[in-house]
């Protein structure tokens, strides 16, 4: 009974509730839409800001300005035709590692065989020193041996000197020459020179003294004797000097 009498009230209440619910939904939708619009607006504003900033950057960094900086400061110029490469291989060629000079092994070994055939001729001059050097064939000594020939060849003097003076002076003299050779660097070339140059020199001499040269090709012992005697004079005086001094003095 009470339910029947309150029916209209319930109806009104449910209608009002439904209407309120619908209104709330639409309100919600409207507010969502408003916030979406707000975001869209902000996007447009941001785009406008981006545009104006881009314009400003573009204006400040305009090509004419870059050109002016280039002329005044950077001085870059167009690449020449040679600076263009065909491909990866050409580029790789540019980056080829530089060859390093390996001082140790190859230099010494190249010079090593050269002096040995000539050494027999030295036997008469100074047999003990030469053979000793040949026996203990470390790389450093081989180099000395090779360089030893050059000064001999150069310092030929017409002044004859006694053999005995030369012999005692031999050991320190060698040290001096070794230092010189080290300074004069390309050991293999000089090491080979004496071997080849000596016959040539003899041939020249032979041209001068035809008959004697033809009959007696081994004129070296005489020359060896001449070489060493030159050294003794300063050697005797400078024996106490360091090897370095004499090396630089020359």
């Amino acid at each position: 009974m009470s339910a029947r009498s309150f029916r209209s009230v319930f109806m009104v209440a449910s209608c009002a509730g439904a209407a309120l619910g619908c209104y709330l939904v639409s309100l919600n939708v409207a507010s969502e839409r408003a916030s979406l619009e707000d975001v869209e607006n902000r996007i447009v504003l941001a785009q406008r800001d981006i545009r104006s900033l881009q314009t400003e950057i573009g204006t400040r960094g305009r090509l004419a300005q870059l050109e002016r900086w280039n002329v005044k400061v950077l001085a870059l110029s167009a690449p020449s035709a040679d600076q263009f490469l065909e491909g990866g291989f050409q580029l790789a060629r540019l980056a080829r590692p530089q060859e390093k000079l390996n001082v140790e092994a190859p230099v010494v070994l190249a010079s090593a065989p050269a002096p040995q055939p000539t050494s027999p001729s030295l036997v008469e001059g100074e047999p003990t020193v030469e053979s000793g050097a040949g026996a203990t064939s470390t790389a450093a000594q081989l180099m000395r041996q090779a360089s030893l020939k050059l000064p001999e060849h150069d310092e030929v003097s017409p002044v004859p000197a006694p053999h005995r003076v030369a012999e005692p002076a031999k050991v320190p003299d060698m040290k001096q020459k070794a230092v010189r050779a080290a300074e004069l660097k390309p050991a293999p070339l000089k090491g080979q020179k004496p071997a080849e140059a000596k016959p040539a020199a003899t041939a020249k001499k032979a041209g001068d003294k035809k008959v004697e040269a033809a009959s007696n090709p081994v004129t070296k012992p005489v020359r060896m004797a001449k070489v060493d005697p030159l050294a003794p004079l300063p050697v005797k005086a400078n024996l106490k000097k360091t090897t370095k001094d004499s090396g630089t003095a020359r």
Partner: protein
Amino acid sequence: MNAPTPALVAPRPERLRLVGQRRQVLTMMHQRLMFGMLVYGGVIALIVLRILYLAAFGDHAGAKRGLTSLVPERGDIVDRDGVPLARTIDAWTIGLHPKKVIGDKLTLARKLAQLMPEHDEAAYFAMLRSDKTFYYLRRRAAPGLVEAVNAIGEPGLALEREPDRLYPQTSLAAHVIGFTTIDGHGVAGVERAFDKELSDAASRGRPLQLSIDARVQQALEHELLFAMTKFSAIGGAGVVMNIHTGEVLAMTSLPQLNPNTAGEGSPEARFNRATLGVYELGSTFKPFTVAMAMDSGIIKSFGQMYSCPRELHVYGHTIHDTHPYGRMCSVAEIMKESSNIGTAQIADQLGATRQKAFLQKMGFLNRVNIELKERGRTLTPGANWGPLETMTVGFGHGIAVTPLHLATGYATLFNGGVYRPATLLKVDRAHAAGKGTRVFSEQTSYKMRSLLRLVVTQGTGKMADAPGYRVGGKTGTAEKLVGGRYTSAAVVTSFAGVFPMDEPRYVMVMMLDDPKATKETYGFHTAAWNIGPAFGTTVSRIAPMLGVRPDKNREPDMSMVLPFVHEEARH
């Protein structure tokens, strides 16, 4: 209490009548009330419905209209890579409402004169006291000035924003882009030619894309300006074109113009020498004459001989050469040393009719075909086109065309012989290249390559060579007409060239107006000495940008010309 009860007293007829009337009145009143209520309820229902509708679909108070899209007031202009060349921005405007001024007018006038010195105090004071309602004090005001004016705090001073045209690259391609009035109407260049598209609300959202390449344009402008300053020329012009599509990649005219302040530029600076100025371009015409003769079957090989005396007397005039041969010379030699005498004879054989027909087909007798409105009328002998005029036109005198004409002519000659109008719009799907018409045969076009390459490797154009880029071209030095007489004191020097010559792709024309001789040029003011070197440097700058690879091992087929060049014995 003597009132009769209804039951006891028989109702009187008038009483009965009264009761009926009351009932009637009551029902009527009910009806009226009901009607009024319905009307009232209806109105309320309408209002409620409207409110509900507005709540659901209506706008709210905070809605901002007109901001949802970013369509500028006037369309942008961009280059072929999208670099902006012209844009519309919001600029500040300072206005004055004299009626609304409340402060001391004299002090205000003093302050305004300090801030904006274009008028003096008296002028500002007169403005403030006048009866006019509004004055513009400054348009496109700088932000600093706006801030200072705002700091005065005078309500009579109005600060507003209004759209303003800005050219971010300043003078770059100024003559191509043009400029607008302060109200935003194009008055020159592309701004004028495409005014409708740029201001139409439907199309201004899309930027207008030009065929101009900003980097190429900058290189061309810089090198040309350098040459112009170095040789104290009064002006210059330059054009770079794609020979196959007719796209203008760069076009410049000197002296420079800043379109942001176009009004301050001199008339000389506003003048577009590339399309509006017509010049007698001299020897750069010779390749056309040779090509016409080849197409007409007059020249069968570059070894064909002509007599090249030191002077040629024809029709009462004497034609001279700068490098006279004084002997027989081949067509290759005529071209190599740019012999007027030789070319005049070729043109004479060709005849006026054929010459005119060819020039007509190349568009040399009409205004140049391009979108711009600033196009100069070419000057030709017209009705006096006799044999002598045919000869002079043959070597580029007596006919005045624009540098753009020359560029299109060279493009026609080297793209296989097809004339195509020049265009300032990028050629792509939206905009097709102009319709081509055949002028020269493909054979002629091919053979001419080696001839023009010869000019650069051995002839007058040596200094225009850019190593590796196979430049081919022709120098031109034309005397200027001063006071009705040709004078050697003032010349127009030009160089028209194509690169790479073994497979031509781009044509460039550079021109200097009245360059002077300097110490480095040994007193010469011919094209070989001033515009030639500038051409070479420009090519080596722009060719890599245009995708032309330098290659020192490639050359066009020179076997057609080299056998016909007489080598001087060297001792």
